[in-house]
Structures are given as structure tokens and as C-alpha cells.
């Protein structure tokens, strides 16, 4: 049973992600955030739901579309925006930008701009956790485009073969860049294929963070009990263009009707409705929303004022050097 506090927690996290991205859209035209944005808008429930189900010591890996993952695991809007502005105080000191957010302290080990590239590293992490007898689960997020890559299948095979404590999370938005599933897949169902591997598969088309959370809880329990991987398959709709902050329904490869169908069950709207149905008043929600909006605005102002890294920083951390 999900209590009210947890419902509120889902809302806060999803609202934070959505508002942070809306702030990016608002500020992007001034061209101060010089980094290719792959926006999370639409996927918030998956990331928030899964991350909430993970133990605090879990490790996560993501893709170049990881604004949601970064904020869901850390809520660190200061580091997030400073990184977007390329500043010294950024999450990775301006070395990575939007596509390479990470925060190992909060479990977010890596994200990558090359599709599917963090998947084998996540599998290796799971092996290390097993090897070192750490009671830790790894969760690796990727899109349906990653399924087209050989390394996904190599990694899934290894994880199943070695019975590793890992959860694969496929967020299927129906398009790899601009090419829809039917133009890429010579098979009917990802889920049916993966069911033949020695792992557990759960799938859902829900945009309800609570439902995603419940499924993810089952996944965590399965990994712990059965000592085998889980494959989670979630559908969602990418609201904006592949890269950038604009709508692209005029580009003919997808339609606004499709978007509208999904937007009816927008995860943030859905969760707000639920809260209002419960004992939370509009005023209380507004208070939460304002606090989040203020936090974001402050982070943006801080990021703008923060200095760029010193020139010598370009040479730092190429190699580990004993201090």
C-alpha cells in the first residue's frame, strides 16, 4: 500500500524534473546553455517510480537522456544547472554537460552519449557487487534504440549467464532518434524474446509513478531472492524532439495526435489529480510547487553567476595520479 507521503514524494520529484526542463526551455534561447539537450519530458514516472523502489545503496546507469535520472537520484538542481551552463560548480565541472551527468555519491555512476554503452559497465558493476558480496543492486536505464545494438544482447546474455543482481530498464518511446519501431525491428515483441533469457520480465504501459514503483519493488525483491536479473519494459512518449527543446510534430515522422493520446495520461497531471482526490488541498500542492520553482530559479541564478572552470582544468583527471 502506498501511503500519502510516498504519493507526495513521487509528485515532488516528478514536478522538480518537469519544472527544471521547463526552465531549460525558457532559458535555452539565450544560448548560455551550450550543450545538446535530450529532454526527459514524458518519462518522469518511469525514472521516479523505479528509483523510489531501489534501496538507497543501489547504483544506476543512464543514457544521454538522463535529466530525470540525475534529478530523481539527487534532487541536486545546483549541480544540474551549473553543468548545463558549463560552470566549475557543475555536476562534472563542465566536462560532461547534459549528456554525461553523473553523481557516484548518489549512486548515479555514469551516463553516455553513445547508445547502449553504459549497459555492459552496469553488468560489470553488478559482477563486482556480487564478487565483493555487497548487497547492492544495479539499475541500468536505456531506450528502445539500445535494443538495436549488439552490446545490449551481449550484456543481457552475460548478466543472465552469470546470474547478476541487475535490473535492466527499457524505456520504449517508440522512436530511436526519428525512426519508429516497425522500421527497425524484424521481430514482433521485445518482451517475448527476452522472456527466453534466464531472467524475469515485467512490462507496463502505465504513466503512473505508483504503478511503476510497485512493479519495480517486485523486481527488486525478485533480484534479491532469486539472484537473477530482471528486465523491466516500460512504454512512454517522448514529448519533445530527439535533441533540443522544441516540439517536432511538423516534421512528419510522428503526429501530434499520438502525443495528445499520451498527454491525457501525463504522469505529473495524473499524480496531481490523485493527490487532490486524497487529503491534500490545492493550496498545499501550490506550496510544494512554489518551493520547487524557487529552488530551480535559485539554482539557475547561482549557475549563471558561477565561474567557468580555469583553463588548466582541461588537463585535470585524464589519468589517475597518486596524490
Amino acid at each position: 500500500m502506498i501511503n500519502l507521503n510516498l504519493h507526495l514524494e513521487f509528485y515532488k520529484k516528478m514536478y522538480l524534473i518537469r519544472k527544471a526542463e521547463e526552465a531549460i526551455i525558457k532559458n535555452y534561447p539565450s544560448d548560455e546553455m551550450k550543450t545538446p539537450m535530450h529532454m526527459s519530458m514524458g518519462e518522469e514516472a518511469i525514472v521516479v517510480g523505479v528509483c523510489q523502489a531501489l534501496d538507497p545503496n543501489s547504483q544506476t546507469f543512464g543514457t544521454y537522456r538522463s535529466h530525470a535520472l540525475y534529478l530523481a537520484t539527487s534532487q541536486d538542481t545546483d549541480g544540474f544547472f551549473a553543468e548545463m551552463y558549463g560552470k566549475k560548480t557543475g555536476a562534472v565541472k563542465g566536462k560532461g554537460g547534459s549528456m554525461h551527468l553523473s553523481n557516484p555519491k548518489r549512486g548515479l555512476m555514469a551516463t553516455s552519449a553513445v547508445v547502449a554503452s553504459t549497459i555492459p559497465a552496469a553488468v560489470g558493476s553488478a559482477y563486482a557487487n556480487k564478487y565483493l558480496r555487497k548487497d547492492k543492486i544495479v539499475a541500468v536505464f536505456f531506450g528502445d534504440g539500445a535494443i538495436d545494438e549488439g552490446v545490449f544482447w551481449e550484456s543481457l546474455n552475460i548478466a543472465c549467464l552469470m546470474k547478476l543482481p541487475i535490473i535492466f530498464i527499457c524505456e520504449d518511446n517508440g522512436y530511436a532518434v526519428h525512426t519508429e519501431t516497425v522500421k527497425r525491428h524484424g521481430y514482433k515483441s521485445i518482451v517475448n524474446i527476452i522472456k527466453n533469457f534466464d531472467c524475469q520480465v515485467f512490462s507496463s504501459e502505465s504513466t503512473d509513478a505508483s504503478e511503476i514503483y510497485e512493479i519495480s519493488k517486485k523486481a527488486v525483491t525478485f533480484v534479491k531472492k532469486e539472484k537473477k536479473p530482471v528486465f523491466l519494459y516500460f512504454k512512454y512518449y517522448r514529448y519533445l524532439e530527439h535533441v533540443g527543446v522544441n516540439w517536432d510534430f511538423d516534421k512528419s515522422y510522428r503526429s501530434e495526435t499520438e502525443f495528445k493520446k499520451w498527454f491525457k495520461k501525463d504522469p505529473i497531471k495524473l499524480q496531481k489529480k490523485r493527490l487532490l482526490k486524497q487529503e491534500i488541498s490545492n493550496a498545499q500542492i501550490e506550496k510544494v510547487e512554489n518551493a520547487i520553482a524557487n529552488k530551480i530559479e535559485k539554482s539557475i541564478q547561482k549557475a549563471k553567476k558561477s565561474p567557468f572552470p580555469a583553463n588548466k582544468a582541461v588537463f585535470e583527471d585524464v589519468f589517475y595520479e597518486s596524490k
Partner: protein
Amino acid sequence: MKVSKTIKQTSYRDAINSAIAAEMRRDPSVFIYGIDVADHKRIYGTTKGLLEEFGEKRCFSTPLSEEALAGFGLGTAINGLRPINVHIRVDFLLLAINQIVNMISSFHYGSIGKLNVPLVIRAIIGKGWGQSYQHSKSLHSFFAHIPGLKVIMPTTPSDAKGLLISAIRDNNPVIFLEHRFLYDVVDDVGDDNEPIEIGKSKKLTTGSDLTIVATSWMNVEAKEATDILKRKHNINIEVIDPRTIYPLDDQLIINSVKKTKHLIIADYDWINCGFSAEVATRVYEKCYGLLKSPITRLGFAKTPCPCTRPLEDVFYTNAETIIREVEKKLKLKTADLSSETFYTYENKFKGPF
């Protein structure tokens, strides 16, 4: 504290094997894996005994998934393990290039120094008995081109042992390249498991007439050439083995060229845009005006490697090629080499592996 050591005649293959076993005994975070690492052949014997001593958790064969296994190594390394990933041919490593070049090499940088990647990738270079164009590359120039990777290419058994120990202890990704022909080379090796510092060149012979910088197997050819040149022309060649391709210690090379004023680079790779160009440039920068002849570069023919022996002999350079180049540079008369035997290893080497 100086540990007393026993020196023993040891093959390159056994030197590598003993380095791995010693490090696995010393540090429980070291493990070794890769395609056929734990099969009956044990990567030419270099992984023998490891499965029996350390178990399947620390020594295992894998699916044929080079890219995933490189990324797997990365994942274990950032979590405190010290993986050694083995490839029976360096050519197979090309399947893992995305992980090596996009992920592994830049991982420490991208994590702003928060996560380290103490990963060793051992890869074997093939030659001879029809290895042809997909079993014969060396790729050290390519790997050395990528920031964030260390590249080691030892020639002698003791260097192989000491440098592999250092590579395993290093907190950075290291590409460790072993030439198949070198496995049977036997030399003095200490049993003290002392690391050899990465990034130090080594003088294999001392001389004042000409410097040869050679990599991997070419050091064997260069030393053979040096012996013959001494007998035929009474000249002394200084052979320098960089041992580490990146970081490159050019000081020993520059000092040597300042003394001899002549340089041949005998690289075990293609010449174009290769390691030989890097060495030549550094020498030109530091020895400008001192050279008595233009730098000579020797390497593979600019073709894929052919299978059949007569063509293979054209593709590769050897001791004879080096002798003739030295004679040209020093304006010596062409010695009669008809009584010399070249290709001694090629002639006794029986494949397929």
C-alpha cells in the same frame, strides 16, 4: 627493504603467467577473464594454473562478446576490482573499440576524477604461419593516440613480468601487447615480483655509431642485426626499446641520438601516421641540426598482411632490412650476408597457434 631474489631462466610466457599469479595472490581484487582464458590451452599457457588456484570467480572463460566484456571490465574496475581482460589476438579488440575509446579511456575524466579504471587489457599480436590480415595487427599507435590509455609493449621476459605487475597495480586503463613469437624467448627473470615503472625506455645494447629504436619483436631483429653489423663492419649500434608506447620516455632516445647522430626506427606497425612518426618528430624537435642523416623509418608495408610466406616476407622488415639500412646511412659497403641465417623463428615456428 630489499628482497633477496633468485634469478632463473624463464620464458616470456612463464614470466607473464607468474606476474598474474603473483598479483592474484597479493590482491584478492585482481581477476582475469576473456574468451578461452580458462580452457585447456590457457592462452598459450599464460593463464595456466590460475583457475585451479583461484577458482572460477577469479579466472573464467566468457561468451564471445568483446564489446560487452570490455564494458564489463570497466564496471568492475570502477567498483574497486582489478580486472585483466585477455584477447588471443589484438585484432579481436577492434570489436571492443567503442568501450575502450568512448567509455574506458574517458571515464576517469568524465567522472572528474571520482572513479578510477584499473583495467588491464592483454592482447596478443600474431605473426607468421599464415596469420594473414586479421591476426597480425599491432595497433599500439592507434591506442597510444587516445588520451586516457597507457600502452605497454614489452620485449624481454623480465620486462614483461615487471611491467605487467605495474599495469595491474596501475589505477588507469592499460593496453598490454604481447607478441606471439616472444613467448618462447627465454631470459633471466627474478622471482621477486618487483614492478617495473611504466614509462621508462630501456637500452638493450650500447653503441656510439647509430641508434635503433625498436618495438616488440623488432627488438629481436634489431639485436640480431647489431650482432652481424659488429662482425661485418665493426660498428656498435645502440638499441633502445621504449617498452611503453604511452607514456613515452623519449629522453633515453634523444640522449642516444645526440651521441650517435643517426636514427633508425624499426616499428612493429604500419609507418603511416604511426608510432615511428611520433618518435621521429620528437627527435627532430630535440636534435635539430645534430643529425648526420635523415631519420629512417621501418615498418609494415602499407598493405593488409598477406597469408603466404613469400609475400609475408615482403610485408615485414627483419634483421636483414635493418642491416642494409644501416649500411646505407653510414655509407658502408654492402656486406656479404649469404652465410647468415635470418628468419630463424619463422623457420622453426609451427602453427596454427
